[in-house]
Every structure is written in structure tokens, then in C-alpha cells.
């Protein structure tokens, strides 16, 4: 899984993903993340609060059609293992012992899906549900190294995809995203003017621990990669003024 030379940085990719306003742009974001990590596939599927299913990702169309035609939804251990859950799952932790599961894996490998996978189920508000998956062809050791090194970022990216998908829910007005609460605005403002976490916490009369959680909540609501990125985004959107 070599990184591409001159590849865009992760924060630029997140930025691109966050501005996606259509399924087509989510699709191109999945390609960008696949290329960034140098893995075979990145796939994101979701079921909105009205129960409608959508998907985007880099799997071959032939495989997607075959998956539906063969009714693999019923035998795919990834679906069985992730549905209604909310913890990330490495495919090697799933039950591949049945004949049907093995036949399915063989077919998946033949269609270039890969023999390794890492899936992150997401449970959003109002019954919304999603699954983000990265898959690849490599040895168990290489995969272990990849997932251990990137697990946190993959969880973060999965949730960024999901936040965009939530914005695309029918009937949802643009920019109806979570506004920051006054307290989050204060915390972000302190960081934006250059105070350290300790100073900011002191000014707000809260513990540093609490500040961290408020900043992390704001980061999530802003769909940002990290605190610096979140501060920049809050400034550019006019949510905080310094």
C-alpha cells in the first residue's frame, strides 16, 4: 500500500469530501481516498432515515450487479457481522466457516474485491445507518500493519462520508448542519486567537479535559480532520470571529 508520490494530503481530501453536494461527488471522493491509501477499494453504503439505500465506491460495476443478482446480501459475513452494530470490524474477525461464505469470498476475490477488509458501521440519527469499507489484496501481516496504523483516520473518514450523506437526505435544507453551541463557539474562539488548551480552559473556567471534549464535538460537527482544521473551518464559515 504505497502512497502515491505528490498525493494530496489527507486534510485536502477531507475538505473535498466535505464540500460534496451530490452522490457523484461522494463517488469521486471514494476514488480519491482509495488512491490516497493505495488500497484496492473504498466503499460507502448508507440507508437513510426513510429506508432508502444508496451507495458509492470503487468496486467494479460487474461485481455490484453480480452481488445483487446472486442475493449475496444474505450470505455476506460483512453484512451479517456489521448490520446494526457500531464498532469497527476487521473481516478476519467475521465468521467465514460456512460453505456459502467461502464461495462468496472466492467470487469476491475473483472480482477484485480483495481478501482483506476493514468495515466501520455507523449509526446516525433517526434510524440512518451506514457502512464504510476499505478492502485490499495483501498478506495478513501487511493488513494488520495498515489497519493498526490508520484505524483512527479511517473511522474519521467514514464519519465524514456519513455527515455528507446526512446533508443529502431528502427534505433537508442546505447548511442545516449542526450549528455550534455558544460554549463550543467560545472554546473554538479561544483556540483561534492562539491560546493553549490550558489557557483556554482556564479562561472558560472548565477543565482541560472538558475543553477537549467540547473541541472534539465541535470538530465532529464541522466535519474537520483535526483541531487546526476545525478552527480554520469555523473561521471561514463565520461561526467564530476573532
Amino acid at each position, binding site marked *: 500500500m504505497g502512497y502515491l508520490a505528490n498525493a494530496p494530503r489527507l486534510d485536502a481530501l477531507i475538505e473535498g469530501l466535505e464540500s460534496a453536494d451530490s452522490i457523484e461527488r461522494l463517488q469521486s471522493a471514494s476514488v480519491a481516498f482509495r488512491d490516497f491509501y493505495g488500497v484496492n477499494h473504498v466503499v460507502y453504503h448508507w440507508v437513510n432515515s426513510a429506508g432508502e439505500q444508496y451507495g458509492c465506491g470503487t468496486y467494479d460495476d460487474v461485481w455490484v450487479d453480480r452481488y445483487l443478482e446472486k442475493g449475496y446480501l444474505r450470505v455476506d459475513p460483512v453484512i451479517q457481522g456489521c448490520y446494526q452494530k457500531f464498532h*469497527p470490524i476487521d473481516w478476519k474477525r467475521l465468521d467465514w*466457516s460456512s460453505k456459502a461464505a*467461502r464461495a462468496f469470498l472466492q467470487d469476491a476475490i475473483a472480482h477484485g474485491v480483495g481478501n482483506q477488509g476493514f468495515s466501520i458501521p455507523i449509526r446516525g440519527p433517526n434510524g440512518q445507518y451506514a457502512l464504510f469499507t476499505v478492502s485490499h489484496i495483501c498478506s495478513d501481516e501487511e493488513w494488520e500493519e495498515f489497519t493498526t496504523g490508520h484505524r483512527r483516520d479511517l473511522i474519521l473518514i*467514514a464519519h465524514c462520508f456519513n455527515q455528507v450523506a446526512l446533508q443529502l437526505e431528502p427534505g433537508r435544507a442546505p447548511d442545516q448542519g449542526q450549528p455550534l453551541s455558544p460554549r463550543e463557539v467560545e472554546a473554538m474562539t479561544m483556540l483561534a486567537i492562539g491560546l493553549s488548551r490550558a489557557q483556554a480552559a482556564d479562561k472558560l473556567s472548565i*477543565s482541560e479535559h472538558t475543553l477537549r471534549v467540547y473541541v472534539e464535538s465541535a470538530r*465532529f460537527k464541522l466535519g474537520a480532520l483535526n483541531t487546526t482544521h476545525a478552527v480554520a473551518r469555523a473561521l471561514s464559515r463565520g461561526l467564530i470571529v476573532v
Partner: protein
Amino acid sequence: MIRYIYAEDLHAFPTLAHTMFLDRADQFKTRLGWEVSVDEQGYERDEYDDQNPLYVIWENADGTHGGSMRLLPTVGQTMVNDHFLHLTDGVRIESPFIWECTRFCLSREATPGVAAALMLAGGEVMKEFDIEHFVGVFDARMVRIYRRIGSSPEILGSQGEGRERISVGLWEFSGEAQASVAKSAGITPEMTRRWFERSFNATEPTPMMDLAVQTIAAAAAPMSLAA
């Protein structure tokens, strides 16, 4: 032993589930006098039990419940965000790296080791799923229990006085804190590891490379015979 069970799978552990909901009624309604609802079966359940939470449960040797807690992702519906915003400065705590931990319950017969085992099991969840904090709601009595086992939450906000005091707090579980809880409870990291593996792995981890080679070889076999 500790078991990690999603609500949808509780049916496979009928005794454990039955005694957990009875113990919750005993703790929250009978002993603490909280305004919780207890159904005709004597179970204390609320709307969050219907959201397919992940329960972390201490199972006694006879299969009954010794203690438990309930985990939910904060990007979905949570008790703290739905009902206790006034205790978090109005901040909806939402992050893939923060889970909510509620209904921390100990049966009347629970030994001190049960609470410690639950905290360690929570630590295992944090480590394996990249969770940085648990956020939860608890009362004054629980503050003492958490302190005793060496895992005091950071209080975000409180309301009420004395025994009635309800707080929202945060847990961060550092390696040192985990080691000290483990030591005082006499629970080894191997034990917490084994409990976790047993619940989250359908089987021993599958060697995916070997499996791929096998399945492809098996499929190719008839062709080579024909040739």
C-alpha cells in the same frame, strides 16, 4: 466473566438478560428511588435499550447478572444529549471517538471485583475501538463507587444536592489508571483480553490469505482434473 452483548443478541443469554433487567429495577428504582419505569416483568428498561446498545455484563458462575453498563455511540441518540444538555453547558457531545456509558449497575451480591472488571472491560473497548472518552450520567452514590475502584470521572456538570445529586461526567482511561484498577482487583490484562476476544471474534481470527488461497485452489481443482 465479562460478556459484551448487543441488545439484539441478548436472547441468546436469557438468564443473564432476565437478571440484568431485574437488577437494574432493584438498583435504580428500589435502592436509588430514581423515576425509572419498571414493566410488568419487573424489568427496568428505557427507550435507549431499544436502540440496540452494546451491553458490557459481568456474568456470575451460575449464569446470572453481577453488574453491567450500557454503551451507545454519541453520533446517534443518547441520554446525555437528549435530556442533560443543561449539565454540559448546552454542548451536544457528539464524536465517533466518544461513546455514552449509562445504567452502570451492580447486583446486591456483587463483589468489589465486579465493578473493577466492568471498568477494565470499558478500557478494552476504548483501546480496541479508538474510543477516547465515555460520557455518562450518574448519581452521588456512584461517585463513591467509581472513586473506590480508582476510576473517577471528570464532572462536566451537576444538579441537585446530597444523595439526589445527578452529574454528567467523562471517563478517560489511561494505561496507568487501567493498570492500577487491574492490580487492585487482581484481574490480569490477559483475562480482560480473553473476555473481549471471546465476545467479538466469531472464531479465532481467520487467516484471510490462507483462506483466499484455499478457496481459489478448491475452485480450480475440477478444472485441472478435467485437463
